[in-house]
């Protein structure tokens, strides 16, 4: 009897569940994500035109500047609102990474600089770094092997 109620209740709950508006979310993510990348492109162009950077060397300072922007927006409480609106659009660009780091740092300030900020700053972004490094390692390994056996 109990099992029966679990099934029936789950069905009732599923029936009333409000689905995520996937198409609408995709469009919003596309527009906001695209806009963030547009800003990044403008920053790159400024670096190339007015500073001694080339197309190859401008990408690192661009990332740093974009993370700085996202730091400011996070600190002033705007990035969270943007995130609710844009979803992946604000999470996937490097500004989302900046937000994950800075929000954790702000949050754990109350536990002090070492145990709080230091210990928790990569709480959310840590797995991005771990899996980023691991996949980079394996890609490099595959490339090296392919070069050694003369495929590329």
């Amino acid at each position: 009897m109990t099992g029966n109620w679990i099934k029936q209740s789950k069905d009732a709950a599923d029936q009333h569940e409000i689905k995520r508006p996937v198409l609408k979310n995709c469009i919003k993510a596309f527009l906001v994500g695209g806009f963030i990348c547009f800003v990044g492109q403008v920053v790159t162009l400024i670096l190339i035109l007015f500073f001694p950077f080339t197309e190859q060397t401008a990408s690192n300072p661009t990332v740093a500047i974009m993370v700085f922007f996202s730091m400011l927006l996070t600190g002033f409480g705007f990035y969270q609102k943007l995130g609710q609106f844009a979803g992946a659009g604000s999470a996937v660009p490097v500004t989302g990474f900046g937000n994950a780091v800075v929000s954790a740092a702000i949050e754990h300030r109350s536990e002090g600089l070492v145990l709080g900020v230091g210990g928790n700053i990569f709480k959310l972004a840590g797995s991005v770094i771990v899996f980023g490094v691991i996949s980079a390692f394996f890609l490099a390994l595959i490339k090296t092997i392919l070069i050694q056996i003369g495929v590329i």
Partner: protein
Amino acid sequence: MKTWHFPSYPSIISSGVAAGPFEKNSPYASSFDTFFEDLYMGEKSFEKAQRKLMETSVSSALLKAGMSEQQIDCLIFGDLINQITPSNMAARSIGAPYLGIFSACAGSMEGLALAGALIDGGYADSVLTGVSSHNASTERQFRYPTEYGGQKPPTAQWTVTAAGSAIVSSDKERNALAHIEKATIGRVQDIEVTDPFNMGAAMSLAAADVIERHLIQSKDSVADYDLIITGDLAEIGHAAAKDILSKKNIHLSSEQFIDCGKMIYQGVEEVQAGGSGPACSASMVYGYFVNELAKSSLNRILVVATGALLSPLTFQQKETIPCIAHAVSLIKPIKGGQ
């Protein structure tokens, strides 16, 4: 365990609600006593702010009752934070004998039921019970940092920043806001929901089950209650609970079967499915509904506070969400003594 009947009708003689800045948008804001202008409330952390909320609601309740802390025989507090520290710290500053309780968001009615039992059993003459929740401290413990830009699904709920407390007394000379008549302690129910952003749905069976047991064991019918009020089921859970109840042959109209989680932020955007947190039911019941009983606008209500008994660890370890609900029936003041 059977429904508890309290023949001495313990009185709720006073209540206090303190709330955060966002709760000013609530259509029931005028029923709350104190508001804070920012989420830190002049404290250094959100957890300390939550303790301050609790202390402030207690002060309001004591002030309205014209009582001092020394006249309280027992404190029963609860909240959502690890080891219920905001409750413990608030109890430290009050200094009366203290029972700390945890049943997540069902803590409000667990506290009120226990307060009724202590008074009716003659173990105490005045019990102060209350619960608190804070949006940012809860987000931080259960979800992500406050400023993290994650997108919440439409099933997510907004934790209420507030604390609500009530003084329950055996004193028949005093004017009561309401009396505690009966209470039914809930059973843990798990309908195998794993999504912590869909807690209303997870709690639906726990709520329906305790309502059914309360009605059968106390031999009451649905018509005996003006309102059956759930704690924080919100849009999805409340609709699901209503469906489950009709399958159990308990038919409720949408005017009679209401939910604090749906009411507290009615018309407020950005809360998704509705409010949640122990203070969701506590602020609505101790702020609004007991005063409606006091005015005799309502005769008898059944409050069913609902709680999702998960922790950040259990859902990461892929456990389903066990849920609980406790029901307390309240009646309007009995005039002319007994």
